[in-house]
């Protein structure tokens, strides 16, 4: 087991810097998720930890060792790739045993580890098959098995679920969560899917353009986003933004909200309540209702032209074009600087 420390980590290709001064502490046994839009550098960062990308500046340590110049296989890490990256010409057994053979482990030990991992992942029946005879989900389990048998101190997952269909994705997500519980190993997981991030992570690292925007527990990021980017990235549907002048001044006052006119106000779809016209913090025209049975997503347009989505338990009585009056609690309302997007909380 080991912690992972990133200090002032930089990555540049030729003259272009893509990772800027990243500092991060990943504790022993922690499940950390790197999340962000595509091109934010999350995969690059993971590959730098793995040793598949050179580190242009700064230091990466695993445990007590600085690993900048250490070969990937000597870092005590194992990686699960998005495309599985199984050896197509080898059977499942050989795929899992390959790394152990390279490490010159005795054959009985290899056999024990491979069979143990296969059992845990329910792939014992497929050990003699080649990857092409397996389904996507089975291939991904083999890829995970290949990582497990090496008994690494740190598991690295690079978008492991994005090639799976929706149902399988949920199952495999659970399996990864169970794996973490069972092994207690440090895991670093890259995804662009905030649901995966929220459900799996002990700690989420939100990245944008090669910089860390915020680090925190899922609930911390949900409740206290430090800027509009994080606020919109975490939570689904994403947080609604409107300018402060859209709010009814007297109602805001009575709720104890004080905001400058050009501040950005953020309210999550699930935090709105309907109310009467007199008590409305925001009033907006009903445009469209998406009824999902369990809840309804109500799309509204404010007078200022901001689009708002409200999550309601039951669809509203009003018809399209009619006004809906909404309010919220002070605690559920986020205030951001109108120019910088930084949280004013």
């Amino acid at each position, binding site marked *: 087991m080991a912690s992972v420390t990133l200090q002032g980590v930089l990555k540049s290709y030729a003259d272009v810097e893509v990772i800027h001064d990243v500092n991060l502490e990943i504790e022993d046994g922690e499940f950390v998720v790197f999340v962000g839009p595509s091109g934010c550098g999350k995969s690059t960062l993971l590959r730098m930890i*793995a040793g*598949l990308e050179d580190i242009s500046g700064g230091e990466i340590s695993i445990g007590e060792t600085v690993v900048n110049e250490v*070969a*990937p296989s000597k870092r005590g890490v194992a990686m699960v790739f998005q495309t599985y990256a199984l050896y*197509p010409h080898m059977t499942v057994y050989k795929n899992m045993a390959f790394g152990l053979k*390279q490490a010159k482990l005795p054959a009985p030990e290899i056999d024990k580890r491979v069979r143990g991992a296969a059992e845990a992942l329910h792939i014992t029946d497929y050990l003699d098959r080649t990857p092409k*005879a397996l389904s*996507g989900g089975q291939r991904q389990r083999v890829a995970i098995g290949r990582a497990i048998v090496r008994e690494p101190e740190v598991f690295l997952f690079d978008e492991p679920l994005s090639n799976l269909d929706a149902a399988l994705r949920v199952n495999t997500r659970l399996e990864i969560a169970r794996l973490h519980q069972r092994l207690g190993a440090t895991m670093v997981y890259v995804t662009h899917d905030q649901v995966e991030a929220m459900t799996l992570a002990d700690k989420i690292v939100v990245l944008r353009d090669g910089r860390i925007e915020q680090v925190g527990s899922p609930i911390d990021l949900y409740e206290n986003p430090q800027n509009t980017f994080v606020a919109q990235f975490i939570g689904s549907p994403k947080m609604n933004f409107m300018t402060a002048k859209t709010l009814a001044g007297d109602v805001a006052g009575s709720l104890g909200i004080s905001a400058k006119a050009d501040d950005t106000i953020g309210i999550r779809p699930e935090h709105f309540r309907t109310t009467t016209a007199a008590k409305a913090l925001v009033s907006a025209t009903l445009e469209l209702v998406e009824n999902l049975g369990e809840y309804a997503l109500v799309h509204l347009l404010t007078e200022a032209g901001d689009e708002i989505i409200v999550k309601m338990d039951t669809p509203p009585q009003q018809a399209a074009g009619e006004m809906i009056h909404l309010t919220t609690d002070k605690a559920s309302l986020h205030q951001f600087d109108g120019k910088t997007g930084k949280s004013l909380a």
Partner: protein
Amino acid sequence: MNQKTIFARFIRPSLAWAVAILFFFPIFWMVFTSFKTDADAVKPEFLFLFTPTIENYVNMTENYDYWRFAVNSVITSVFATLLTLVVGVPAAYAMAFDPSRHTKDILVWMLSTKMLPAAAVLYPMTFLTKNFLGIFDTHFLIIVVLSLINLPIVIWMLFTYFKEVPKEIIEAGKMDGVSTWGEIKDIVLPLAWGGLASTALLCFIFCWNEAYWTVRLTTTDAATLSKLIEGNRAPEGLFFGRLSAVSTAAVGPIVVLGWFCQKQLVRGLTFGAVK
């Protein structure tokens, strides 16, 4: 019946046949002629109607030492192909998986060596190998020359095939701690097996067919089938029957080889590796 079906049913097959016959005719003519006497061979009225004879083939093996030339061709082509692969595989591997900024330039430069007219270096090659190195008319010389001629094209082909090996699989190998040699042996070559086989076959064919240098850098000891054909060009007259028999016997093995390897060459192994 509309126009498209007329085209598809009659015109297109006719065109295909016309092209096929056009290309095949010289070979057909050569094989036919090889079964004629030299006298019959030059008479146009005997194009199809003649009394077949294997005299030319008997003559070729008994008097012209066909087998010695054939053995030389096999030796030089096999070893030249092996040497080319031994040098080409690591070169293509390095360029495909660890390219530098200059890799593209090197590839183009290598190909540019094919632009050098062979005749331009004929004299230095003959002089140096004969008088200076003393390796004129040896298997060694022919093997080296054939390798050098084919190296650019072989590296290009291997480079393209290696490029098709998914990068993640190579990276998975690195994570598993495989050595560079292990990576080539256990991952790249098994995955690019089809490509490697077709490259080797093509290289072998080029070596077998090479005529410029094999004719000029040999006299007897290392002379290949190309030299045998050249030798039967008959300055004193037109022995078409004999020449055709020699030619048929020279291209025969390679045609048969190509025919048998056809299926293996098309097979790819990468399916299932990456979704």
